[in-house]
């Protein structure tokens, strides 16, 4: 079968889409397992978002060393080169076609033309997209000076351009906090960080940045409007109550020339939806089994396309896992399991992946709570699993190892819950 006879055809066991940490780790592992692999990324360089994340905090688990984003990316890239993995940058994937379980075609454009790649399996590691101003309900003038955190970060830390001088940041997750520090270090005035929730969204060490630079944090507040002529001039902030409803009469205008939106990431899964991959509304990413295979056989997923991760270490781990799944899939012509045990969300669990476990192997569950709590126990009643945790926060992904024998104790499902100890 030759879908587009006029386009040059390449053939591999597996195509990895996305050259971030998930994709690089996946491609390296697949190659180590003896598969022929092609890695594609639309950027001009490998690394995904890491080369622009110049702060440290990467790799404490995976490399047992604290690295900056570019350093972490360079280590993975070196491993790729040493293993002789084939990769192409400036290669943008347009479409994935699923002809049958072991027949996929990936179509990409590159400076040397359009290509189609025939592969037995695909590992999708295209990362996430950022939520933008309209998505979070900000109205007002169409002015310049509104950036997502990633755009501002790329301007500053790749191109060396300071996007503005008086900045309001929306969102107190790690990304927002790290951007607050970058702006402050570069001599811009960070007028405020605005957070919708009654607690900061980021890790404690990043919340400390605000104290370092005397940056005010407005909890239970939201930016609702932007005004300006040509460029942002002021933004309107209102207080919200515990149900996130605006408090009448609480308006406050902040003068600023720049608004940075750091309101979270959403897995970039449009291309997967097109081929019928089932999406979990809680993660925004695909529903997967314990090999990180989606509901379309032979399509695997890892990293921020699977679930938004706060630690790159888990991202790389997922990449390797997906590669191991791919190997099993190709060797056996599919991933079989006598029965799948469904993982369900109990009290205070907002999301959990993977969704289905075979009980044939040890797995890591990745989960996030819905709200912060202290002195809790993470429980899986069906198998009598209990784990004490001093604090849980929505910002911090919890990783829980389950042994195959433990999983087998469950009959049809496992319920993960976080309750007061």
């Amino acid at each position, binding site marked *: 079968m030759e879908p587009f006879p006029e386009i040059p055809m390449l053939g591999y066991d597996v195509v990895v889409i996305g050259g971030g940490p998930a994709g690089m780790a996946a491609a390296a592992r697949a190659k180590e397992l003896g598969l022929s692999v092609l890695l594609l990324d639309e950027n001009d360089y490998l690394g995904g978002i890491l080369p622009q994340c110049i702060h440290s905090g990467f790799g404490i688990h995976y490399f047992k060393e604290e690295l900056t984003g570019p350093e972490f990316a*360079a280590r993975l890239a070196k491993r790729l080169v040493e293993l002789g993995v084939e990769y192409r940058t400036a290669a943008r994937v347009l479409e994935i076609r699923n002809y049958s379980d072991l027949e996929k075609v990936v179509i990409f454009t590159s400076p040397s033309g359009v290509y189609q790649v025939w592969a037995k399996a695909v590992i999708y590691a295209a990362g996430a997209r950022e939520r933008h101003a309209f998505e979070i309900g900000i109205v007002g003038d169409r002015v310049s000076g509104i950036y997502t955190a990633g755009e501002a970060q790329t301007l500053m830390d790749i191109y060396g351009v300071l996007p503005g001088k008086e900045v309001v940041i929306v969102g107190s997750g790690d990304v927002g906090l790290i951007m607050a520090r970058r702006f402050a270090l570069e001599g811009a005035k960070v007028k405020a960080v605005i957070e919708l929730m009654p607690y900061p969204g980021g890790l404690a060490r990043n919340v400390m940045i605000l104290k370092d630079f005397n940056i005010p944090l407005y909890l239970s507040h939201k930016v609702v409007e932007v005004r300006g002529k040509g460029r942002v001039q002021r933004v309107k902030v209102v207080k919200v109550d515990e149900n996130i409803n605006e408090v009448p009469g609480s308006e406050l205008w902040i003068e600023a020339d720049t608004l940075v939106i750091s309101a979270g990431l959403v897995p970039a899964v449009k291309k997967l939806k097109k081929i019928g991959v089932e999406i979990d509304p809680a993660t925004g990413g695909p529903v997967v089994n314990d090999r990180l295979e989606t509901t379309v056989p032979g399509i695997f997923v890892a990293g921020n396309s699977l679930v938004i991760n706060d630690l790159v270490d888990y991202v790389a781990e997922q990449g390797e896992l997906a590669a191991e799944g791919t190997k099993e899939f190709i060797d056996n012509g599919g991933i079989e399991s006598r029965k799948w045990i469904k993982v369900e969300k109990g009290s205070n669990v907002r999301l959990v992946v993977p969704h289905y476990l075979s009980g044939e192997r040890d797995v890591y569950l990745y989960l996030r709570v819905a709200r912060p709590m202290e002195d809790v126990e993470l429980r899986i009643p069906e198998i009598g699993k209990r784990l004490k945790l001093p604090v849980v926060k929505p910002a911090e992904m919890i990783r829980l190892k389950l042994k195959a024998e433990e999983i087998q104790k469950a009959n049809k499902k496992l319920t993960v819950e976080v309750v007061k100890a």
Partner: protein
Amino acid sequence: MTTYRFICIVCPLSCAIEVEVKDGKVLEVKGHTCPRGKEWAVQEVTNPRRVVMSVVPVEGGALPTVSVKTAEPVPKEKIPELMKFLAGIKVKAPVKIGDVVAEWEGIKIVATRGA
């Protein structure tokens, strides 16, 4: 006497630490779970330091900047001065990750990206 309260950032346990200081002397540290946290808390009130990351322009590289970090933590109050210094430097490609691209008051500025 002044009491400083903060969250320990040395490990993910995030202990709430209190440090009591009088006339520049640390009287008591409470709330830490381990000696590393105590040591960090004392330094945090007496002489806070940070590793500083930034970018400097690079000529002839694949990207217009190269990211850098200080090889050791810098006293917090000296950071603006360091940033001024960094704003004044420019490097030439090729730069390898780990190269020392400049030195400031005896502190090495190390490239964290290649260029």
